[in-house]
């Protein structure tokens, strides 16, 4: 595992830099010579067909799995939101959000984070009383309360219904705009990628095979369409 502390002297400090990454399960090579750089405040979506290695890459970035070659340079431990909320059922919401938080005013910070995701009145509630979307919002709060420089999202909205998913998109955009971490979002949903990301990557054959910078026009078109459908963005999507 090579998580190096990058020098902070560089003008635009990246959230993560991956060089010549190599990862194999036994003899099956999943990631081969993959290069990737995500700036702070940049929102990157990662598409790719099932089994191409998106989760493998994300887990390597999170430091959850070892890597077999190359280098991952991240300033700090990234925050992760998984497809499942992974809330601890035996802890109240604020204690879930505060998990691993090192600070004197842990409860206040957790409360603020929960308020940000619209659950400020549920501090002492139990996870089992939450809907899927609410639970995923708590998971988001738990990730962001750590003030990460890199936020890794592995299909966090895949299990949600379409409408909740769109609401979550707006929430994530707002949160990312406020906290400005570098974001890597793994998704199967092309529209989701277009709606959220500054840059869309397609992974194939163990590397980044295609890169697309989202033009403002399509995002705006989509936002207008959604507004017509009654889903109102509280922040206009920047061009």
């Amino acid at each position, binding site marked *: 595992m090579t998580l190096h502390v990058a020098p902070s002297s560089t003008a635009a400090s990246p959230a993560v830099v991956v060089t010549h990454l190599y990862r194999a399960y036994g003899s099956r090579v999943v990631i081969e010579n993959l290069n990737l750089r995500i700036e702070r405040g940049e929102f990157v979506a990662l598409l790719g067909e099932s089994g191409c290695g998106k989760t493998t890459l994300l887990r390597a970035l999170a430091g959850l799995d070892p890597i077999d070659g190359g280098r991952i340079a991240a300033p700090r431990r990234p925050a992760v939101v998984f497809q499942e909320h*992974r809330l601890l059922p035996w802890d109240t919401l604020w204690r879930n959000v505060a*998990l691993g938080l090192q600070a004197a005013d842990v409860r206040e910070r957790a409360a603020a984070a929960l308020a940000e995701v619209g659950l400020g009145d549920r501090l002492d509630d139990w996870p089992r009383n939450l809907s899927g979307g609410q639970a995923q919002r708590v998971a988001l709060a738990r990730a962001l309360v750590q003030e990460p420089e890199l936020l890794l999202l592995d299909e966090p909205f895949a299990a949600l219904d379409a409408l909740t998913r769109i609401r979550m998109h707006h929430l994530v955009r707002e949160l990312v705009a406020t906290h400005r971490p570098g974001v890597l979002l793994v998704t199967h949903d092309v529209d989701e990628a277009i709606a959220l990301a500054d840059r869309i990557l397609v992974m194939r054959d163990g590397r980044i095979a295609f890169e697309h910078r989202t033009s403002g026009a399509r995002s705006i078109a989509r936002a207008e369409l959604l507004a017509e459908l009654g889903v109102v963005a509280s922040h206009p999507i920047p061009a």
Partner: protein
Amino acid sequence: MSNLEQTASSVAFDAAQPSDNAVSRAPKVPFEIGRRGLLLLSWLAPVVLLIVWELLAQAGWLSPQVLPAPSKVLRTAFKLAASGSLLNDLGISLLRAIGGFTIGASIGFALGILVGFSRIAEAAIDRSVQMIRAIPFLSLLPLVIVWLGVGEAEKIFLVALGVTFPIYINTTLGIRQIDPKLIELGRVQGLGTLDLIRRIVLPGALPSILTGVRYALATAWLALVVAETIGAQSGIGFLAMDAREFLRTDVIVLTIVIYALIGVAADAIARTFERRLLAWHPNYGGAR
């Protein structure tokens, strides 16, 4: 007909989602009466049995040497309690149970934690423990008496032996059942080993551990009865064996009732703990 089907299907739906308050609340009213009726019915049989027993004893059909009347047992209880000897023996029995339970539970818990966490400890310890567990622990009593005589040590040892295994097994089981995804989450959130244990492993294993505690309470009690029946100079069991010499069936029945009551009380305390500690768990106390 269709009405009936509809009711049946809605009940099935409720049963499938016990945690959904909004859904299960609706049809509760017609059930409330039924449940209370069933509760009354469940108490009917024991009460009738007690009355029949009393009547048979009063009529002289039941020799006091076989079974004394319940009223006689009650009177004996008051008499013994007034003389202070009952409380004394009860206290001694409880002390033995608590002492043995504390020792056995500590050992079982410590071993369980060790084996639950470390594959090396599992390889080194688990098979031996499982083999010892295969022995009905009460069958060790003659050996324990040879080792320790018939003093306090023998009794506490036997209780501890009975307690160790259920606690050990349920602790290791509880730790193994923890969702590895939650452990992974702990690592993502940057928890150290100690915090990982405190925040994720122990709470996750707690339902299983408490099940072990309840089971251990039962075996502790059983061990105590056996140990006190054989060579004791004090305690509830001694009271029973002493009464046997004088054919005082009223005292014997009283000791049996006391054993039963304390067993029920211990279980009730354990349940209260479960409700408190597992308030988050949908299967235990419905705290919100």
